[in-house]
């Protein structure tokens, strides 16, 4: 039996297959002990008949992310090359904000007195310049031990070129019973600050993620042969054992599930190229999928670099709870300050400062009886009262509300531009997949602003992450920095083959441990290339004419390329993909018909018309009453349990055979 469980801030969503059918279960999350909610979900699901066969449980978790954000990780000690103990504190020597005398930066996760230097040195080619003697290794191991760490991070200069010294010391520390995060094992790539920060974060997360996984292990212990996997930030799943050892790979576990869910439902609906748009209460995640998932090694989490591959997800601090205000010189600002859950938007009953959610309510875009199917009433009169007081020079509450949405939309638009146009992708070739509580409220307006021709609002927009986790493949990334110039493809054939063989031996072992036979594994090989002298690299597939594809990619992304310039290799990457069985979702029959007969009413809602708000009669629908083939024209609003979709005038919606809503501008 396959079960996917995604732990979110409010709900723990479960998607599972019973008798070949998809089912969904929603439970409240337990912030202090997320594993308990998972255990309860398992009890509820497994307690009922029909769940047979070997249990395969996959979890999306925020344990790692929260431990980093709230700095509730373990006590870590760090060993570096002697003389470089402060690299973790100096960082890249820049400050996060320029024009602020009171700027701060996150304290390093390891304080000065738990950072130790090992007298050793390797050069950039991997030659040993100074080998640490037995005595030195013992001295450092003892000092580390007496600092009483819960986990140890080990990161020596140029260990990607020669890991011998890291190995020696790791062996000694492990023999003393310490959990050791070793840089060449987790991230054998150059740039010492980013690597050190990543390894330290890994060690920092080991205790919290470890105990979470232990507890889940206990809840499935009764099921023989049960397999527990965890969603990683790279868009693939991996065994709980690996996630426990390398928890830094899970820090974007939740959002990655959402992206994967969007990808799978869009693929079923026939759309390969999508932009995902997940708008929640305090922040919004966007990402772009051009057929394949795109990862980056340049992410930051909680102000610190995390350089293991993660899905390229761009987050902006704007959501339904973002607060609107006028600044000293009279511009309307929205966010990044958020009303959060407490006090929340005005209409929730306690907040007094206008938010994006209040604006939607004023404009008649939220269900009159409130959110969550009426279980959460909204106070419109209250919202109107406080917004009237806060509207400044703006003519009416409606105009103010519309202005809040216009401003917050520019933030969203900017976020989508970053992941599309700035990377050389034209949004006109993409479908916007909108989810999260507020995604469907903004999607059409955003699509119109960016020329995106279509919006897809999936079935269960609230449970999409869990669905994505259920559909995820096992993915493991291996890489190594190998720097050399490439005079021609044939000249590097030998070295490339050796480099890949080196990292892939580990890959095969890891896939075997995940239970995959060789013939069920696919490998994607990438080369990080750049022109000689450049400081950043582009990843291109290693197969075929990789030089030509490098020049092409460079041209597309940066507007110029020159095949006569010399090219150098920086990193080799292998991605191992073990396919899991796809989702057994069967399409329903789609019969074209007008949805008017199932509308649940009409009311006045406000839409922009030539830059000004205008009240229009709007048809209201309950998504539960729509069936495949239903069509409806804007202006309309479709309500469902945990989300709302707005169809502006000039747009139409249809429900496809997988029960997704497809929204497009009316042709002609």
């Amino acid at each position: 039996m396959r079960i996917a469980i995604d732990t979110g801030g409010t709900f723990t969503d479960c998607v599972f297959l019973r008798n070949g059918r998809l089912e969904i279960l929603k439970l409240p999350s337990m912030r202090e002990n997320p594993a308990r909610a998972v255990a309860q979900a398992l009890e509820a699901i497994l307690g009922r008949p029909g769940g047979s066969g070997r249990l395969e449980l996959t979890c999306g978790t925020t344990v790692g992310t929260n431990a980093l954000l709230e700095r509730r990780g373990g006590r870590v000690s760090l060993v570096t090359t002697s003389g470089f103990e402060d690299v973790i504190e100096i960082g890249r020597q820049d400050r996060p904000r320029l024009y602020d005398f009171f700027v701060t930066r996150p304290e390093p996760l390891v304080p000065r007195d738990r950072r130790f230097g090992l007298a050793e040195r390797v050069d950039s080619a991997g030659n040993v310049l100074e080998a640490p003697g037995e005595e030195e290794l013992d001295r450092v191991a003892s000092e580390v031990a007496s600092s009483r760490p819960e986990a140890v991070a080990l990161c020596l200069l140029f260990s990607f070129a020669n890991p011998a010294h890291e190995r020696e010391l790791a062996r000694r520390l492990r023999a003393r019973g310490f959990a050791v995060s070793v840089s060449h094992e987790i991230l054998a790539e150059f740039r010492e600050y980013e690597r050190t920060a990543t390894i330290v974060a890994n060690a920092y997360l080991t205790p919290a993620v470890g105990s979470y996984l232990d507890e889940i292990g206990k809840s499935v212990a009764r099921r023989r042969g049960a397999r527990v996997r965890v969603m990683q930030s790279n868009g693939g799943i991996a065994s709980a054992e690996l996630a426990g050892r390398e928890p830094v790979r899970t820090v974007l576990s939740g959002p990655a599930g959402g992206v994967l869910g969007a990808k799978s439902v869009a693929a079923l609906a026939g759309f390969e190229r999508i932009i995902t748009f997940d708008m929640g209460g305090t922040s919004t995640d966007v990402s772009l999928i051009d057929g394949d998932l795109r990862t980056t090694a340049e992410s930051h989490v909680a102000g610190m670099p995390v350089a293991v591959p993660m899905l390229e997800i761009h987050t902006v601090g704007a959501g339904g709870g973002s607060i609107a205000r006028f600044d000293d010189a009279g511009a309307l600002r929205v966010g990044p300050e958020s009303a959060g859950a407490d006090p929340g938007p005005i209409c929730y009953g306690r907040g007094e400062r206008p938010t994006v959610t209040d604006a939607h309510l004023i404009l008649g875009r939220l269900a009159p009886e409130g959110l969550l199917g009426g279980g959460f009433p909204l106070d419109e009169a209250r919202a109107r009262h406080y917004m009237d007081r806060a509207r400044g020079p703006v003519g009416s509450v409606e105009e103010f509300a519309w202005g809040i949405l216009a401003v917050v939309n520019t933030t969203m638009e900017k976020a989508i531009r970053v992941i599309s146009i700035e990377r050389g992708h034209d949004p006109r070739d993409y479908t916007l997949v909108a989810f999260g509580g507020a995604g469907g409220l903004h999607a059409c307006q955003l699509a119109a602003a960016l020329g995106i021709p279509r919006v897809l609002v999936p079935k269960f927009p609230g449970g999409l992450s869990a669905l994505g986790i259920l559909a995820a493949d096992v993915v493991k990334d291996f890489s190594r920095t190998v720097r050399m110039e490439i005079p021609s493809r044939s000249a590097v054939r030998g070295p490339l083959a050796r480099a890949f063989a080196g990292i892939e031996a580990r890959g095969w072992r890891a896939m075997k441990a995940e239970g995959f036979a060789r013939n069920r594994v696919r490998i994607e090989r990438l080369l990080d290339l750049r022109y000689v002298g450049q400081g950043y690299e582009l990843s291109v597939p290693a197969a075929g004419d990789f030089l030509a594809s490098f020049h092409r990619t460079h041209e597309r992304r940066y507007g110029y390329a020159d095949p006569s310039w010399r090219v150098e290799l920086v990193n080799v990457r292998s991605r191992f993909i073990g396919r899991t069985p796809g989702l057994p979702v069967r399409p329903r029959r789609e019969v074209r018909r007008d949805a008017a007969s199932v509308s649940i009413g009409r009311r006045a809602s406000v839409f922009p018309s030539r830059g000004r708000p205008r009240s229009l009669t709007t048809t209201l629908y309950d998504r539960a009453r729509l069936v495949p083939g239903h069509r409806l024209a804007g202006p309309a609003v479709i309500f469902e349990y945990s989300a709302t979709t707005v169809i502006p005038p000039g747009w139409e919606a249809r429900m496809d055979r997988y029960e997704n809503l497809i929204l497009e501008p009316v042709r002609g």
Partner: protein
Amino acid sequence: MKPDPIRLEIFKNLFHSVAEEMGAALRRSAFSPNIKERRDYSCAVFNSAGDVLAMGDHMPVHLGSMPMSVAAAIRELDLGPGDVALLNDPYCGGTHLPDFTMVMPVHLGKGSPMFYVANRAHHADVGGSQPGSMGLARQIYQEGIRIPPVKIFTGGRIVRDVLSLIVSNVRTPREREGDLAAQVAACRTGGRRLEEIVAKYGRGEVNRYQAHLLDYSERMMRSALRNIPPGTWRGEDVLDDDGLGAGPLPIRVAIRIRDDRAEVDFRGTAPQCEGSINAVYAITYSAVFYVFRCLIHDQVPATSGLMRPIRVLAPEGTLVNALPPAAVAGGNVETSQRIVDSLLRALAQALPDQVPAASQGSMNNLTLGGADPGRRGAIFAYYETIAGGMGARPGLDGLSGIHTHMTNSLNTPVEVLEHDVPVRVRRYSLRRGSGGDGRWRGGDGIVREIELLARTQIGILSDRRERGPYGLAGGQDGAVGRNELLLNGETRSLPAKCSLEAPAGAVLRILTPGGGGWGKKESG
């Protein structure tokens, strides 16, 4: 007509995103570590009059000075569609020679340009007597190639003659060519974006709102100025020396606040000097811009409007408004910092709870150059700046090992540096205890030790080697910096500003200053 607060916010975001997109294009496609790894560049959008409408959050020292590049390009050249101007002349729109600025008109229809986009990037070598073009000099002619505003592109085609003239005068021509290509790519990115914005909102609306945006920033600044007690606030600080024996060199400022206006008067500052630490007016203007911008406690676009209520008086022929042929390489990086220190000392009297103690006050510029025996004698030229201690703030310790005020460039990772340049970094750590003591402690400086693996020409431009960064409200000064050369078992102290050649095996050790402390330390 009053602007619509909503549209205003939208246009603010739009213009800013153009500058950010240009920066992303430049960073990702540039060649030299200096631009890519260190991010020593800036991008900005200008209206037809050459006023800044938006600037990416890049290098503060470029902030106020970019408009002068655009003004010079407009004045000297007739820029048509497809033309791109290039310049670096500090006496004609530039700051110091390594900063190459490109200016591209964005026409959008017939007639004169509706916008200009520009970017500036610090090139690792622009010729002159020393590799890295940042060493000691007596005249600008020794500092590298000097480029008045010229067209590097005309009608969309590169002007080969100009390009080859430039790359023939520098040590690492291919890298220069690659970086210039990236700068052009960034300009075009900006041009395309502006075109889209005008297509969407219409010329009239865009024009109205660019003007509103300037007024808006002006109101922001006026509102910040009203919070400063009226009066004349004086400050003074000194540069150690000019590297040629003259010093200390005082920078004096009087800030006169009246209602919502400020006059910043540098009369009394030392005359321009023989060494290369003269600042041209653009730099002084930038430093003033930076300090007053920091007094606005809100996100605000860095437009020219911010400076409308502020008048800068910098007498010609002084350290803060040098005339040709004074050498200026260090004006941008060292003198700019001291100008900030003088301004803050003045403002600390007016706003004691809003102004930090002095930060390290130097960028510790280090240039290395020579022939790399490991690469068949290939020429290398490398430039870096080293962070130091931040001054303590009322209520907060200063940060350690961080760039402050007029720069925010990143370090070059050791694992990149040693791969590219024949050196070995032996130590890169915080300089414990170098921050000034006080109720709030100044941040610590850095110790950086670099072993040379080849015979190398070294250039150092640094300051705060004589007097430590000042503490405030009873806090102690930060420790002074030190430059040392370790050779054959001996440690030799090096001057704050020097050029020398050292053999393989020598170790250069730079200790950067700590930040000043704030407030008296409570006893017990």
